[in-house]
């Protein structure tokens, strides 16, 4: 056989072996670290308890609250309509399907905001957009929504307007003297992830 063909064959084999080393990365798809750092140092991911309360009360269908506390804590008390994904189960089969749905805002909730922020960083590393952190977490929720404190009489009028909103939200969430607390906020339209492994349809 011609020497040149042998040479070319050997070269192709070497390159083929080379490609094996290119695909050692078995991690799921993730964004470049530089990009992650850029996202991390921006404070745009925080939403206040008031904003979350408002979205729940208005029945905003684009809101998905993800409670990252343990299952026990979640069972004891959770915001209406929230789903439970503890941090240790974040990567479990199917859980990532909750994130990155176009038009859905995912708000992470924990006791304070640290664990929620950690979850935010981890999902951001996986390239998920549209996720937020409820600043202050449930501790802040209790202080602002469930038991809001009254501003001083000479406080700015925005403080009084905020207090009025919080008192209304308190009634909504604690169910005091209001019969309509249970409707509207849980019935979110179902659209589960569809398995389309088999080519569907066709006329």
């Amino acid at each position, binding site marked *: 056989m011609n020497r040149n063909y042998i*040479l070319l064959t050997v070269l192709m084999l070497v390159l083929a072996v080379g490609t094996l080393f290119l695909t050692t990365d078995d991690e799921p798809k993730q964004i470049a670290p530089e990009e992650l750092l850029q996202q991390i140092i921006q404070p745009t991911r925080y939403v206040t308890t008031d904003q979350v309360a408002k979205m729940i009360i208005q029945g905003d269908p684009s809101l998905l609250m993800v409670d990252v506390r343990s299952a026990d804590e979640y069972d004891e008390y959770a915001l209406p309509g929230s789903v439970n994904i503890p941090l240790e189960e974040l990567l479990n089969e199917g859980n990532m399907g909750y994130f990155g749905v176009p038009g859905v805002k995912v708000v992470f909730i924990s006791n304070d905001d640290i664990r929620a922020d950690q979850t935010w960083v981890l999902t951001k590393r996986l390239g998920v957009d549209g996720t937020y952190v409820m600043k202050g977490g449930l501790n802040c929720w209790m202080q602002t929504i469930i038991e809001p404190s009254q501003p001083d009489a000479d406080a700015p009028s925005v403080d009084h307007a905020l207090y009025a909103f919080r008192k209304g939200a308190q009634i909504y969430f604690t169910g005091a003297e209001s019969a309509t607390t249970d409707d509207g906020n849980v019935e979110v339209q179902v659209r589960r992830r569809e398995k*389309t492994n088999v080519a569907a349809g066709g006329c």
Partner: protein
Amino acid sequence: MHIHERNPWRTLIAVSVFVVILVIGFLTMPKPLFEYEKSMDESIEALLNGEDYFYPWELEDVIANKPDSIVLFDIRDNFVFGQGHIPGAENLSASTLADPDNLERLTALRDMGVSIVLYGENELQANGPWMFFRQVGFNNIKLLLGGYEYYKANEDDLYSTIDDDAYFSGFPRFNYAEMAAPKDGSELNADQDNKPVQVRRREKTSVAAGGC
């Protein structure tokens, strides 16, 4: 007869040029600034174990003795830093973390085995940068619990905060269920277990989903 069989050197030259170009390509491939050195699973495990925190009471020693083995970095912006900071801390604003000079400094400190303590106004502010550096292989970076706010409130007697738990995050400070219980005495969460929470999930669109 093929053309290169008439001149065997032609093939050899072409192959050599090809190989040289490949080698040059690999050698000059831009090296990324950072690379993940912790996988997702390792990162989650480290967070669950509560590793790599720096406690406020440990500051007492750092402020008094200024050991060479620990450096404090304040990630708040320069203006706020100027209004007050932990004695001995250096300013390293979050927005300048990826600057070449700062990275060089951080890498040098890591190679010397110096511990770096990051802090922001509160724990939340420094949490992101801290997590980031842990994931890209800076295992000497720690996070100051409580942040500057807690330090400021307790700066007169830092050592006594060893018995305090106010700077720990992740704990409920109230009995939520009791606080949020309906004022009319009915059970708020009674029907929550049975009520299916229905959510939209992302659809897989990788396969062409037929249709007309």
